[in-house]
């Protein structure tokens, strides 16, 4: 993974000291809240319901064990012993004191971490396939490009005061594990007919109040031209963006209003201008960054067989393991969705366990998935049983990846100032309703995603079953949506009809799931059945 050079260290440390001085001045009454707020947000520090919340950036979801142990240390020392992994592959602490924030950022800087660009009108943490560098189906590791774009754009003035936040994702496989087309700007690394590597470029996607699925705006972009192309996209957006209307500031609105063709035309025009300047980064710079992502020294000749004598272990293997590119290795998915737990939450002790496992069994690498789970990307199949035993002892061995209880849920009204309704209790009640492992496996892949407000941090637009919490005259109410997807067949979920109260939404979900069971054809997932029979086939079951 990428290692800071002297310039990176100097920049991050300087930023910490800048913020330390800003906090000192705010606490001394030398700055108003209006003056201080944009400064703290630029350092990932929000004010939430119960305390300050610090969002720590985890670029493209990659961590090492030293960093994970530091996150555990911060959770113990400055927070309440836990952290929360987000749908943007970041980590949030929900109980931070302002007076501690500079020291926390200083501790993060020690392990090459920060909270820059986790808030504000900037290019947010660039996300990637959480199997990057390990997946059997990828063309190449997409993270060097994510890191290159991160370096190109961080602190670049033209990208620092954007009309609104801007989200980028990069993948390198046909399978989309990063909700690519739900991003403002998305890159899939592909090969053309000549065997050259380039980007398939998408733009104008996003969830929130007005969801749009990104259009493909270029089928093939030579990799070396990415900075010119990104500058062209942002220039068109900057030129037209409605900075006067918060509901129309995101780039997806512009792409929709200009139209796909006109947006593409204007981008291409600007692109030719930027190309003529010859300011794309040199290949040597990409090579320097890519060298940090050299694959680990995988052993040859390892056995493929897994001893499945222990039935609980066998169930876990079947659900939590993904195919690795290196023979004899596996990708391990660690569920953060225990039935009675809070999705994405992890205790400091569990962080230490995971860090130890990464160090001992996975070449010191960890990944955070946007689904609020963790990944050990490079585990020898022969070590899987030992890994499982450690995870089981730490309460991290649930076998529910992509099943009905592997629910994405935002923090909701239990923590978030923007939320209108609680998300976590609904997720817990649904998980409890479907807790029977055999029932979960019988239902197969079924992705439920819950947001506590229209901002859609819980990705409800992309849920096979989506749930949106709203405020109806001071009471929590939940809308049910069906048919969304964040994979390579991206689709937007549709509202079924009138909303439900907290218990009613759990019953409605169960009725939809039971209808699926009744009408599914062999091999069909919930989403496949929905796409075949349509909304009407489910509405009758849900509303009677």
């Amino acid at each position, binding site marked *: 993974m990428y290692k800071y050079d002297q310039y990176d260290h100097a920049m991050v440390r300087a930023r910490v000291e800048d913020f330390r001085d800003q906090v000192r001045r705010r*606490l001394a009454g030398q700055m108003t*809240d209006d003056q201080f707020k944009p400064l703290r947000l630029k350092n990932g520090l929000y004010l939430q319901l*119960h305390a300050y919340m610090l969002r720590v950036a985890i670029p493209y979801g990659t961590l090492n064990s030293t960093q994970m142990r530091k996150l555990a240390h911060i959770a113990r020392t400055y927070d309440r012993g836990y952290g929360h992994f987000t749908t943007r592959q970041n980590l949030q602490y929900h109980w931070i004191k302002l007076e501690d924030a500079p020291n926390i950022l200083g501790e993060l800087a020690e392990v090459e971490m920060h909270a820059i660009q986790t808030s504000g009108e900037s290019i947010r943490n660039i996300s990637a396939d959480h199997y990057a560098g390990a997946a059997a189906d990828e063309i190449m590791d997409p993270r060097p490009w994510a890191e290159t774009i991160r370096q190109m754009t961080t602190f670049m003035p033209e990208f620092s005061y954007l009309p609104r936040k801007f989200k980028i994702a990069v993948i390198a496989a046909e399978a989309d594990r990063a909700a690519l087309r739900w991003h403002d700007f998305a890159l899939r690394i592909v090969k053309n007919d000549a065997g050259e590597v380039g980007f398939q470029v998408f733009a104008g996607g996003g969830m929130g109040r007005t969801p749009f699925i990104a259009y493909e705006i270029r089928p093939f972009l030579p990799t070396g031209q990415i900075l010119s192309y990104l500058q062209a996209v942002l220039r068109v957006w900057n030129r037209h963006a409605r900075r006067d209307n918060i509901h129309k500031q995101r780039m997806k609105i512009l792409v929709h209003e200009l139209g796909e063709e006109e947006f593409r035309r204007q981008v291409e025009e600007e692109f030719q201008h930027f190309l003529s300047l010859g300011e794309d980064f040199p290949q040597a710079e990409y090579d320097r960054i890519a060298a940090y992502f050299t694959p680990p020294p995988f052993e040859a000749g390892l056995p493929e067989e897994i001893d499945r004598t222990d039935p609980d272990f066998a169930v876990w293997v079947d659900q939590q393991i993904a195919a690795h590119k290196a023979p004899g290795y596996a990708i391990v998915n660690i569920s953060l969705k225990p039935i009675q737990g809070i999705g994405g939450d992890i205790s400091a002790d569990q962080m230490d366990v995971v860090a130890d496992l990464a160090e001992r069994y996975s070449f010191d690498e960890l990944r955070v998935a946007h689904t609020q789970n963790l990944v050990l990307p490079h585990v020898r199949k022969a070590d899987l049983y030992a890994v499982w035993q450690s995870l089981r002892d730490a309460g991290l061995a649930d076998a529910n990846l992509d099943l009905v209880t592997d629910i994405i849920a935002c923090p909701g009204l239990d923590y978030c100032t923007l939320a209108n309704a609680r998300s976590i209790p609904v997720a817990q009640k649904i998980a409890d309703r479907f807790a029977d492992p055999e029932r979960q496996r019988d239902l197969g892949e079924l992705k439920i995603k819950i947001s506590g407000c229209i901002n859609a941090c819980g990705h409800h637009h992309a849920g096979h079953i989506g749930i949106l919490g709203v405020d109806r005259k001071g009471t929590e109410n939940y809308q049910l949506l069906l048919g969304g997807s964040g994979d390579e067949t991206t689709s937007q979920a549709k509202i079924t009809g009138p909303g439900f109260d907290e218990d009613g939404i759990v019953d409605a979900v169960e009725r939809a799931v039971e209808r699926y069971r009744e009408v599914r054809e062999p091999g069909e997932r919930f989403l496949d059945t929905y796409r075949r029979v349509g909304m009407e086939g489910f509405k009758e079951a849900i509303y009677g």
Partner: protein
Amino acid sequence: MKILTGNDLKNGRVVWWDGQGWSIHVEDAVDVGDQADAILSREDAACRVNGGYAIDAEPDPSGRGVRPAHIKDRIRAYGPTVRPDLTLKPADPNAGTWVI
């Protein structure tokens, strides 16, 4: 009735205006009548509380203190309903029902 709330500047904790200063217990909140703007303006200048604002509340049915009208402020007063161990009343198993 109108009560005032905000977050402590230093530690972010939820606080309630008790007539003299800021308390972490909603039970201590007092009706400020039509004085909300004046108090908030004064307190904003004192830099002790972030984002203070006035909310509607009613006398608590228990007879002690007040109950914010909106669930968001009741959750602010109590803590996250999914982590009773982190609330102000971790030993009271029924405290969470006050929120809903």
